[in-house]
């Protein structure tokens, strides 16, 4: 990253300013074209199309700054960190900045896209340019007022100073600035001069959260709004046969019982993909009621029968099918270097292990819900969704409306983890409102949410490696997965390029159970499998576990491969610091350490888990986590992200189990499904590598490696190699605990 970078794209199409009748200036800019979660690195920023504005900076006559960020908050702190980037270059005191969720003018917000873990990476430059451009306009206005050259003026903390030492506040020149040309070239600060970026900054919604103010989708209300609860098929593979709503209709709080599904079916016929069984096109019975409880009660009173439409699947069959696939020879090769077969044939020793992980529900703390009000004039949709742009398109297609008729407003989200990328629940709300001609809130219970989800697919990896003369000569990874597969990027992750003969093969089985992205998609289990394998491999080779990695990364440095995604230097950096900070190899008696290192979501992470055995049950006491994510924009939010990712990873690799029996989910609520709780959590000791590289994702990359760190530590304590998740249910290393 070069400081003082000059941008080449036309700023006129990117920024626009106007004076406000109420005083002050409003600067509009486009935030999200540059930071879509599915976008690739914007290699050529001049190609970005800044046609419309969806975010605003308001500077009042008093110099107070309000940043209207259209970015919904899932819990990653981007609602705080993204405005920090603007404020840094605008050069105002953070205390003078007020951040508001941009719902003030919905017409300007139909093109929002909520960023995932990547948002900070993609917005890093555009947002800083925005702030810098606004600052330059203010400086130009002050210079014109003084009749001096703008280059003689400087701005700091909201005050502009000229060569004579005269000063003007931003508020004093906003009116003039509104009429100024938008400057074409602005320079960005040298990271050394940052005063806001890198400073611990509290969550901008903190006061509302701790006092219980309405913030989330579930909290949203409108005059005349009714509540709806949807009865969906109890098993994947089943559809509605008959139903009797008389008992439900007799309840005093129930307004109506309707059937939806027809619109969704037509919409599916138009070629839209079915993300979930929820919009598989079956009929669903909807209870519309005065309150949420009336709707839930009404749903329980419906007597419905279901018939089998496609085969009902069970975890037992899935296991068999995936093993058969691994044993078979039908694979798609994702990457192949050298000759794995030959390396294996010539090896002194080949080791092969198989790793297994179950389906997982997202279980966002706030169950899926959405508000919809479909009227002849417009379609108003409000709630927690990560993909508002897609949602608007889908709603338009569903209801046969113009895209302009659709307004999507985003609320704060009670967790996402990938679930809120899919808008099945918005579609339901829209279809219900359309049928009853009323504003409606569709609310899922926990049972609905866990039982009709979009799951992390059940997956098995078989990894084999060949050892010759004490060296690793070949590495072959096979993946068998329900529905989804690893995407093209993963085969270029470590150890690709580190082993001469290397191959990644994938295969899958198409199931009627809906699957999709789950926190740290594609790597959340892969990292566990590979890093557990490496631990065993090092032992088989009789070499030090850490040294094996450092040496393999040295190979990569010596034979650079343009296709690989990770940086061998940065991986070595996190490994070395983790060894130092965790006191690796020097733990006290009774404490067992496990190591893991991984690159994903553009960040490099090494982790060491310290465990103790309590009456035969492993307890993770501490995790040392070293992260290289470039510049840490907000250390306070970053710590939350890192610790949350680590503990979430431990919870799901050790405790959370899920599966199906004849299409019916094995758990539907927290009495039988375990999420990690405080008593099971370690202290997470976090260290960031300090550098001046552009920031990368933090919401996801600390989760994937931790499963292996824990498994490797448990091996040291018990002598058992853990290959099947969740570990606590599968390896007899302790009691399964719920609650």
């Amino acid at each position: 990253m070069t400081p003082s970078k000059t941008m080449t794209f036309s700023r006129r199409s990117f920024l626009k300013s106007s004076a406000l009748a109420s005083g002050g200036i409003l600067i509009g800019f486009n935030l999200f074209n540059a930071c879509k979660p599915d976008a690739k690195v914007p290699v050529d920023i001049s190609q970005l199309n800044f046609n419309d504005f969806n975010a605003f900076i308001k500077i009042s006559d008093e110099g107070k700054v309000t940043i209207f960020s259209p970015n919904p908050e899932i819990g990653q702190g981007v609602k705080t960190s993204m405005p920090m980037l603007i404020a840094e270059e605008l050069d105002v005191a953070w205390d003078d900045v007020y951040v508001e969720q941009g719902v003030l003018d919905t017409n300007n917000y139909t093109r929002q896209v909520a960023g995932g873990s990547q948002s900070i990476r993609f917005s890093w430059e555009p947002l800083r340019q925005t702030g810098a451009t606004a600052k330059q306009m203010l400086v130009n206005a002050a210079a014109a007022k003084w009749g001096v050259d703008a280059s003689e003026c400087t701005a700091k903390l909201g005050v502009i100073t000229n060569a004579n030492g005269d000063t003007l506040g931003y508020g004093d020149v906003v009116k003039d600035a509104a009429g100024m040309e938008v400057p074409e070239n602005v320079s960005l600060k040298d990271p050394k001069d940052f005063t806001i970026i890198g400073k611990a900054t509290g969550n901008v919604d903190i006061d509302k959260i701790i006092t219980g103010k309405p913030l989330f989708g579930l909290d949203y209300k409108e005059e005349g709004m009714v509540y709806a609860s949807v009865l969906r098929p109890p098993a994947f593979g089943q559809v509605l046969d008959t139903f009797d709503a008389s008992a439900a209709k007799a309840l005093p709080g129930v307004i109506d019982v309707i059937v939806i599904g027809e619109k969704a079916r037509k919409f599916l016929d138009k070629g839209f993909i079915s993300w979930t069984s929820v919009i598989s096109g079956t009929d669903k019975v909807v209870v519309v009621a005065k309150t949420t409880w009336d709707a839930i009660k009404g749903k329980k009173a419906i007597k419905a029968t279901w018939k089998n439409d496609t085969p009902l699947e069970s975890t037992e069959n899935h296991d068999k099918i995936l093993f058969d696939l691994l044993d078979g020879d039908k694979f798609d090769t994702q990457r192949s270097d050298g000759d794995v077969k030959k390396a294996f044939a010539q090896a002194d020793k080949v080791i092969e292990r198989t790793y297994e992980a179950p389906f997982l529900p997202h279980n966002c703390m706030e169950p899926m819900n959405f508000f919809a009000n479909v009227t002849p004039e417009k379609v108003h949709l409000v709630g927690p969704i990560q993909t508002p742009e897609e949602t608007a398109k889908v709603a338009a297609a569903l209801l046969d409306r113009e895209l302009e008729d659709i307004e999507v407003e985003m609320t704060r989200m009670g967790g996402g983890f990938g679930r809120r990328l899919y808008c099945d629940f918005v579609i339901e709300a829209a279809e219900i409102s359309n049928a009853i001609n009323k504003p409606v809130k569709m609310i899922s219970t926990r049972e609905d949410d866990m039982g009709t989800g979009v799951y992390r697919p059940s997956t098995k990896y078989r990894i084999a490696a060949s050892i010759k003369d004490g060296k690793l000569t070949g590495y072959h990874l096979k993946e068998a997965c329900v529905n989804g597969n690893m995407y093209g990027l993963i085969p270029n992750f470590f150890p690709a390029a580190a082993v001469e003969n290397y191959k990644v093969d994938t295969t899958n089985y198409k199931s009627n159970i809906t699957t999709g992205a789950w926190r740290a998609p594609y790597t959340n289990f892969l990292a566990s499998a590979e890093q557990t394998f490496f631990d065993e491999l090092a032992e088989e080779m009789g070499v030090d576990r850490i040294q094996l990695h450092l040496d393999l990364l040295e190979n990569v440095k010596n034979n650079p491969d343009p296709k690989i995604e990770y940086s061998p230097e940065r991986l070595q950096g996190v490994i070395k610091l983790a060894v130092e900070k965790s006191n690796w190899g020097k733990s006290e008696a009774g404490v067992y350490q496990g190591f893991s290192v991984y690159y994903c979501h553009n960040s490099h992470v090494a982790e060491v888990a310290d465990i103790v055995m309590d009456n035969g049950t492993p307890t993770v006491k501490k995790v040392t986590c070293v992260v290289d994510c470039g510049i840490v924009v907000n250390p306070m939010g970053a710590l939350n992200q890192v610790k949350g990712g680590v503990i979430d990873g431990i919870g799901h690799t050790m405790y959370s189990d899920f599966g199906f029996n004849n299409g019916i989910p094995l758990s539907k609520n927290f009495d039988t499904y375990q999420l990690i709780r405080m008593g099971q959590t370690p202290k997470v000791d976090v260290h960031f590598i300090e550098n001046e590289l552009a920031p990368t994702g933090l919401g996801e990359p600390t989760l994937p490696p931790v499963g292996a760190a824990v498994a490797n530590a448990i091996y040291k304590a018990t002598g058992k190699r853990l290959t099947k998740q969740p570990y606590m249910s599968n390896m007899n290393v302790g009691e399964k605990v719920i609650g």
Partner: protein
Amino acid sequence: MPTFNLKINNETHTVEADMDTPLLWVLRDQIDLVGTKFGCGIGQCGACTVHVDGNAMRSCLLQVSQAEGMNITTIEGLSEDGTHPVQEAWKEIDVPQCGYCQSGQIMTASAFLSKNPNPSDSQIRNAMHGNICRCASYNSIEEAVKVAADKLS
């Protein structure tokens, strides 16, 4: 439908509801106190925690008919202006991630500390074990409870 008189945050509210309606939904849908959250509906997650006569209770399990005559405090009534020591500690440590579970966490912590203002580490972990945080902000919650305990003692 029967009517009930509820004393919530030192105010009396008269609501019409089925006997078996959980207090949670009366608070959220009828009295507009949406700070109390729905997470599981079966007493397993703690998102719906309120104070009933000073004790932390799951409002999803408490029927409106049982709540009559009791002193109910929700997150909105924990303090006038968000300055209860637990709220202040939450802000100082910047605990929330998505934030959804946090009013339940704060209500559990505040009821616990009012009975035990000088808790040990393991008492804190036990007291908070019933509240799930899907974002896993547990380290920060633990730290914030300690900070709040310091403020209280």
